[in-house]
């Protein structure tokens, strides 16, 4: 599995050309699981881009006014309406979880089993609270009359775009939370030290799985950055 190249690898553009034209593997120094996760994330990038581009097309082509997101997503605290409060809290929670994930990857490579597991559990719980807040937001908006086909505040497409984009992102977060709990449990039990085989693939796992998991989790955070900017702030 490890790269045992007798010739030192070249860097930069020269390295890119020689890597891509080489035998066996193009992505040197990258475990196959990580390369596959990157390929998956690239395809996911396209899916989310298509969602955001269709949002752009709907918003630019409608002749009706677009609802003011700053007001629609406002939260009333002590009688004062604070714009986008819940969304801001969700953003900070997701960034926090990204930070704990990055540290879990580090602890994993240092074979600090308990620390890595604790950080993974923390990441999963933060992700879970994000999904919970999103469920709260959805129920609040449905109560106010926002539907995929209509809403009282402006252009009809607003509802369908909102539920589709945030729903698909929320689904990604939920799947991520499930896998975070699974991997946290494996790390806690010491599966990657004892070489215990997985219940589904029957393969031995390695600590690099945490980095692959981390890539997915950071990607979910990355997508949220774009949704936050284009959908909520625009």
């Amino acid at each position: 599995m490890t790269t045992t190249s007798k010739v030192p690898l070249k860097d930069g553009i020269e390295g890119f050309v020689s890597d891509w034209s080489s035998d066996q593997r193009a992505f040197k120094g990258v475990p196959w699981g990580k390369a596959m996760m990157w390929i998956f994330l690239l395809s996911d990038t396209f899916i989310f881009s298509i969602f955001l581009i269709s949002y752009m097309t709907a918003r630019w082509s409608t002749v009706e006014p677009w609802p003011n997101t700053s007001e629609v997503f406002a939260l009333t605290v002590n009688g004062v309406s604070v714009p986008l409060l819940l969304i801001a809290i969700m953003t900070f929670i997701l960034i926090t979880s990204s930070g704990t994930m990055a540290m879990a990857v580090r602890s994993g490579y240092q074979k600090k089993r308990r620390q890595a597991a604790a950080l993974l559990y923390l990441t999963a719980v933060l992700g879970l609270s994000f999904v919970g807040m999103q469920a709260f937001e959805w129920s609040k908006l449905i109560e106010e009359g926002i539907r995929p086909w209509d809403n009282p505040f402006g252009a009809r497409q607003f509802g369908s775009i909102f539920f589709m984009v945030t729903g698909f992102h929320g689904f990604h977060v939920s799947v991520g939370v499930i896998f975070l709990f699974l991997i946290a449990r494996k790390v806690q039990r010491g599966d990657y030290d004892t070489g215990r085989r997985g219940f589904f693939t029957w393969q031995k796992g390695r600590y690099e799985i945490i980095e692959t998991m981390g890539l997915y989790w950071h990607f979910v955070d990355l997508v949220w950055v774009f949704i936050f900017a284009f959908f909520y702030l625009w």
Partner: protein
Amino acid sequence: MAEEGQEHPISTYLWVWLLLFVLSAFSYAVDYVGFQGFTRWSLVLLFMFLKAYFICAVFMHMVWERMALVLALFIPTFSIIVFIGIMGFESDYTQLSRKVFFDTGKPAKVYAVPHSKSHSKDHSDEEDH
């Protein structure tokens, strides 16, 4: 490199983490302060791209990866810009034809203001409900 994994000092992560917090606070402030027009979207885009860059570069270890992987991921991603351009033209054209062929000349429907308790009242005098 004996291990294939990525290992970096904890201070790097903590600094980037802090930076992402600050950038998020800034982009939220854009809405809170209530900037509009060019100032608004240029600031929103600036903070968005900075955040995206730091997440990709440090948290996803992009700056430490080999050029072969970086280009395999970024060349396809940048091709999305072409798609954005195409759909931008398309939506302009759609809006133009809606205005030219479907504009009835009637005043626009009155929309409710979010969170105003009386928005059900605002709708009572409209016949299209």
